[in-house]
């Protein structure tokens, strides 16, 4: 098992990519905290699935955009498990990849950017800020931020979403730069269009097919692809690798 006895927090893991990461971490022996914002039932279902498969998980509610709630969450994790080895910043403000609803440059309000920044970047900031002192004391830790391959290849220009994910990649790099001296590794994963998830359900068939056509592996990404990469980044197989952003998109983005 790659993550035996490691304590992992996966934000926004009631569904989609987050849930897949939580499940795989648990399968590899990690004690997983499934964080949710509003869908308690789905988070409980993730936890139930993990437990049925013989893993260890609990569901804890916290709004990652609120520092006080995140601090409380990390305190609770520390009290329960006396450690925090892995953090996956997966939560974001809800987003629908629907090209038909795309807001154009001339009409998109600043508030849309702000909302996405608050979710992706603000959430990651709050979680890292609370988790770093714990990881520094441990002399080790893994931070994995879920970005997007749209930053490098904006096939469809979701301005607010892409801007916020680009900020998250920048945050990952500067974080990695300082935290490395404490034995903490921080990396990002840039999934391609991951289907099915709540965010991508609205992406129409022809858009999906157009992306598949451009993709060397001739398929879209599935949540388990991202979970595999996250497991590697969280495990001891990944050593001395930090500040990177790995694209998990079938080779749509290279380099």
């Amino acid at each position, binding site marked *: 098992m790659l993550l035996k006895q490691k304590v992992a927090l996966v934000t926004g893991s009631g569904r989609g990519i987050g849930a897949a990461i939580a499940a795989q971490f648990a399968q590899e022996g990690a004690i997983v905290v499934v964080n949710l914002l509003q869908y308690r039932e789905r988070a409980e279902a993730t936890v139930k699935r993990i437990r049925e498969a013989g893993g260890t998980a609990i569901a804890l509610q916290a709004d990652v955009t609120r520092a006080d709630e995140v601090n409380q969450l990390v305190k609770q994790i520390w009290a329960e498990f006396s450690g925090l080895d892995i953090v996956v910043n997966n939560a974001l403000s809800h987003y629908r990849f629907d090209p038909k609803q795309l807001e154009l440059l001339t009409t998109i309000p600043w508030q849309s950017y702000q909302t996405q920044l608050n979710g992706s970047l603000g959430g990651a900031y709050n979680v890292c800020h609370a988790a770093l002192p714990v990881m*520094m*004391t441990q*002399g080790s830790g893994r931070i994995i931020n879920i970005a997007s391959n749209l930053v490098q290849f904006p096939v469809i220009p979701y301005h607010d979403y892409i801007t916020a994910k680009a900020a998250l990649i920048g945050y990952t790099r500067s974080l990695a730069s300082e935290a490395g*001296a*404490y*034995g903490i590794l921080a990396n990002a994963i840039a999934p391609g269009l991951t289907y099915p998830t709540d965010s991508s359900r609205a992406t129409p068939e022809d858009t999906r097919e157009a992306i598949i056509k451009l993709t060397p592996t001739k398929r879209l990404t599935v949540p388990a692809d991202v979970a595999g990469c996250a497991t590697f980044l969280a495990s001891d197989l990944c050593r001395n690798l930090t500040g990177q952003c790995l694209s998990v998109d079938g080779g749509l983005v290279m380099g």
Partner: protein
Amino acid sequence: MATETSLDIFFAPEGTTFSQFKMLPVAADGKTYQLRYPLVTPEELTALISQLQQAQAEVLAPLSVNDLVTKLGKAVAYWTDPNYPLRQLAERLLPAITGYNAETVRLELKRFVRVFRKKELQRFLETELDQPAILDDFHPQKSGQLTRAYGPETVFQVFSGNIPGLQIWSLVMTTLVKASTLGKTSLSEPLFPVLFIRSLVQVDPRLAACFVILPWKGGTKPLETVAARQTAATIVYGSDQAVTSIGKLVPLDHRFLHYGHKISFAMIGREALTPDHYLTTIKQVADDITIYDQQSCLSAQTILVEAGGAVTPLMVAQLLATELENAQLKRPRAQLTQAEAAALVRFRSENDLAALADSQIKVFASKQSTAWTVVYHGQPGFAGSPLNRTVHIFQIPHLEQAPTYLTVYRPYLQSCGLAVGPERLLRLAAQLGKVGVGRICALGEMTRAQAGWHHDGQFNLLDLLRFVDIEHQAELAAEPLDPDVE
């Protein structure tokens, strides 16, 4: 099958015979080296010392101090050449003999020999003697008299085996004052002095008669009694126990210099923990701890870290822990003896227990090994460590408060690696000097003392010398006795 090579780890003038030898096998580079040394008897030692006395009179005494500087400088120059066969031999064998990381040995050896370049030897001389030529002749002094200095004819030197190469420090000093040497090496590092003397003999074959270097088990009374009594001076490097036991054998009217147990430490001011400096500071501290695994008395055992910097003293402990973990990959610590490993395990469990009882104490330690340990204390204090990359970090509100915690260690304090701004450097140095510290140095340089330092607060050469004055009146009184006087 691996080839075998025999190598003498002793030095004695040509023609010396010993009744019995012992071999110590050491594996290095796929070869087995049989290190050969004699089991010397007190009678053989007596004869050797008397030969050393004679050689001193015939070879060393007639040489000028400048000649000696030139010859020593040439021997050192050989060692600054990476292709010098004896240096290559030392680089191969010392890691195998001592257990130290090969890269550390290679780097530190070449840095160390540079301290003895010809110009540095002159620095040693001129730091302590206004006129080094008084080692050759009587020279007029400002006070009116004529003065000449004499070194002891023979010196019994007891070397410690903790740091490769360190032995030549005192070998060079005694040779500069024209003393022959009987050196007792430790079997944990018997090689370097022998190789260095071979270099010196390469420069001037006559010097071979002036050195005897032998390993024997420390505390062998019959040998040490002969050595201490029949030589003119004794210098001991080692534990307090070694110093005391040999000290008892030295006649009262003989010079006895000793360098026993010492503790060094570091103090980091908040100005060295700013966002642009803290990483360099941590790296330097880690180097000081890593080089030769703190076996040198110059390495920090405790670090006092001032609060109020951009990173807290606790973060310094955390950063140092990561740096020591990295060092283990780059330059692994030497394998420990069972006793050393047991001491570390005991140290860790004591501190783990203390940490359970006191939330101000935190233990950071390598997993599944004893490679490194950092014990953080949230209160000011001072403590020794069992070495081998084990260090205490004490938080202190202001470095100016440090002397309070140092006073009880006064007889043992030696170097302080001090990282503060220029304004505080002299003020803090004065406070540290008052409580017994003998050397203030830069972080990252703690293990590398510079030419001309006062070892343990003493002179390098002056303490070996005896001065003879011809008073001015005697000169004046001699004048009328010149048959040619008017």
